[in-house]
């Protein structure tokens, strides 16, 4: 069978079988903990982001709506059990060639790291890893990411640790 016929049939096969894959850092390096009852897991799928982009929001500024439109998924993994151990494991598992460190905020109480995965000039994934004495949190945004707008959206949502992203332009 020649190549042009496969090019026609292959996307149809994918549609028919409903193939879907999530390729964020949490799925890649911490996938085994997604079903673990010690962890709290929040997942917002591409379907939800597509749905949100279609809704007419009157009260939300258009730039924030645009930020949401460009996101494709969000996953948060968090636990109160042995936070320091999981933080160490996360730092050891993450492929540093793929995820470049963007910003680190370290104090005597907590440690927050932001990493990005780039595709060309575009930030494809923003990963936040945060630890303090009470909990360990990993959060991954996937999409076409504008850090400035995303930090605004995150602070509006009240996501702990994301306020550190706000100062990125000044560093």
């Amino acid at each position, binding site marked *: *069978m*020649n190549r042009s*016929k*496969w090019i026609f*049939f292959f996307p*149809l*096969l994918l549609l*028919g*079988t*409903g193939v*879907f894959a999530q390729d964020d850092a949490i799925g890649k390096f911490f996938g085994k903990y997604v079903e673990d*009852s010690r*962890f*709290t*897991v*929040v*997942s*917002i*799928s591409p*379907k*939800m982001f597509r*749905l*949100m982009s*279609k*809704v*007419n929001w009157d009260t939300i500024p258009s730039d924030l709506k645009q930020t949401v439109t460009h996101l494709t998924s969000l996953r948060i993994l968090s636990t109160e059990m042995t936070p320091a151990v999981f933080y160490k494991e996360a730092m050891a598992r993450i492929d540093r060639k793929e995820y470049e460190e963007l910003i680190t905020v370290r104090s005597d109480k907590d440690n927050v790291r932001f990493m990005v995965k780039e595709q060309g000039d575009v930030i494809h994934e923003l990963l936040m890893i945060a630890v303090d004495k009470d909990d360990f949190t990993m959060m991954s945004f996937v999409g076409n990411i504008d850090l400035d707008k995303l930090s605004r959206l995150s602070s509006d949502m009240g996501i702990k640790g994301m306020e550190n992203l706000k100062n990125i332009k000044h560093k």
Partner: protein
Amino acid sequence: MKNNYLRLKPITFPLLMLLVSFSACAQASYVDQFYQKYQDTKKDKNGIEGGGWQFNFTSSGSSRPGDDWFSKVSFLHCLSIDAAHAQEWSDLERSISKDNFEEWFSVRHGKGRFQMLSSDGKGGVEDVICIVVGKEGNGLFFHMRGCFTAADKDRIKAAFQEKGNENE
């Protein structure tokens, strides 16, 4: 005849694959089969339901865009499942997965879970599923069908989220 066969041979395999995948969509849904199975097995010898309850609602369902989302519901099925009936949970999850429902979002904490999914049907009809599981593992399952707009779906999400928060 043989020439025709030889001409069609290169596309036979992809066509068969397509037929298999699309014929799966044409069958009665696995979730519907799950209801049927548990409607029969839930009742004991005296015809009394044990280990949970079910509620069914069907209507013609409005398809006018301006109407309230609830008036667009043409089918609603509620089901409660006890923590002790682990087999029911796993059968239900398998049925949802086989019906190719796509997740909107989920929140899991310990044994507790809040999850919303949907599946697109023919003619703009959509099936929306909401699963609320408490810390003890007891849960509620909602399945509704209708022609919903994006704004309707946002309201449905908000309504279930509100109920989910009340139950926590």
